[in-house]
């Protein structure tokens, strides 16, 4: 579904990504792992049209979407849950969630999905009339993910899902994402918590210093000695 070919990109004269290629097949969960500064966010920003690449292409279902405007890319069915939440802090939790469904017209579907989000994250239902910015960090993370899910995207991109979440919350999220995936959503997970990422995804890519150094099924990657040492801390 999503294909990145030979992508090179950076910010203001500093090149971060070097010739990155990867594929996210329709209906699968894929993950890109790597440390801080490896270039994961840069890759996402390029894919979603926030920065222009220096070279290379981004294709969605074979269609070239390189350097299209972000709104156009969202309209094609890609939703990103950004790192650091980026909620609207003065709006209520409920409004933040409903805003996620901005592009949808099916009011019944929206209501059903909102109920489903509340089922996934009961604390959000409890706090639905509170300003989103008044919640704790982890609760805000849940709200950001919920907002992303409300868009009912074809491709859901999650940037640093696990940041600041209690371990038990990760269990809930992993379960939720499995359900979302079973419903037909393709998921692309960009993560630093390699253990969680490999739990969820079937295909993995390892990014180091702006290059893809390893690729394959997560089952294989899990037993790769370099991965074990550098990322799983084993």
């Amino acid at each position, binding site marked *: 579904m999503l294909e990145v070919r030979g992508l090179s990109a950076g910010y203001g004269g500093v090149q971060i990504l070097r010739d990155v290629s990867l594929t996210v097949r329709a209906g699968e969960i894929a993950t890109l792992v790597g*440390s*801080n*500064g490896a270039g994961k966010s840069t890759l996402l920003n390029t894919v979603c049209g926030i920065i222009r690449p220096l070279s290379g292409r981004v294709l969605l279902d074979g269609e070239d979407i390189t350097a299209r405007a972000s709104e156009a890319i969202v309209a094609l069915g890609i939703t990103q849950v950004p790192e650091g939440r980026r909620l609207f802090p003065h709006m209520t939790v409920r409004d933040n969630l409903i805003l996620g469904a901005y592009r949808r017209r099916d009011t019944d579907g929206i209501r059903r999905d909102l109920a489903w989000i509340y089922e996934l994250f009961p*604390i959000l239902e409890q706090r639905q009339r509170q300003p989103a910015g*008044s*919640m*704790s*960090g*982890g*609760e805000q*993370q*849940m709200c950001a993910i919920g907002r992303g899910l409300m868009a009912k995207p074809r491709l859901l991109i999650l940037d*640093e899902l696990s*940041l*600041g*979440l*209690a*371990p*038990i*919350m*990760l*269990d*809930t999220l992993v379960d939720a994402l499995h359900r979302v995936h079973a419903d037909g959503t393709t998921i692309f997970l960009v993560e*630093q918590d390699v253990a969680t990422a490999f739990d969820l995804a079937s295909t993995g890519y390892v990014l180091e210093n702006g290059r893809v150094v390893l690729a394959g099924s997560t089952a294989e990657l899990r037993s790769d000695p370099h991965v074990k040492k*550098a*990322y*799983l*801390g084993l």
Partner: protein
Amino acid sequence: MSVAILTARGVTKKFGGLAAVADVTFDLREGEILGLIGPNGSGKTTLVNVVTGALSASAGEVRFAGRTLTGLPSHQVGRLGVSRTFQVVKPFRNLTVVENVMVGALFGASGGAREVRVARRQAEDVLAFVALDHRSDAPADGLNVPERKRMELARALAMRPRVLLLDEVMAGLNPAEIDAAVDLIKRIRERGITLLVIEHVMKAIRNLSDRILVLFHGQTLTEGAPADVLNDERVIAAYLGRRYAEAGRA
């Protein structure tokens, strides 16, 4: 057994009708590292905010080194020797790294250094201690994630605190960086600073904490040695989840 340097008795914080922190009582013993864990929204940061005076307490009392802390404005708490880092780091963006840390040195415990020159030297020392001195003159908004966290820590350290409250400093760090951070925190303790560490990174909490305090819905769930707390069924059910239960690693 060492002496309690900071005590909290019945600390409560309500927002409207809702208690974010409810009747929390604990001791922070001199020289220890106390881990504070709990599900998201359990009141950990709110508790730190009340202790440091960023928020007023609805009820209860916090005492430090023989003085009552509750009711004091946050700048006075800082001057008395209690420092904290923020979960979402708050750098002074238009200043350089060393200038950021200098502010800590200029205004910290007992009012800090009076002279800018002295503060600069102190700041440089602290930056060397946290291994960020190679970025001294870099603009604060040009740092990457682990560097930003270290600067936040350096700023708090430059205040020469006796007690340091860390709020999720490990979030966003990879395994190697986490090890380095754990190491750094241990070295901070060796300097005689008492620490309270809020974290979700279990590896770090296990390695660091002398004791662990668990919050749940604003109340203390349990408190004790890591081995006991992390194996407690209630903690597993409320916080750790199955990955820790299954793996039996706790």
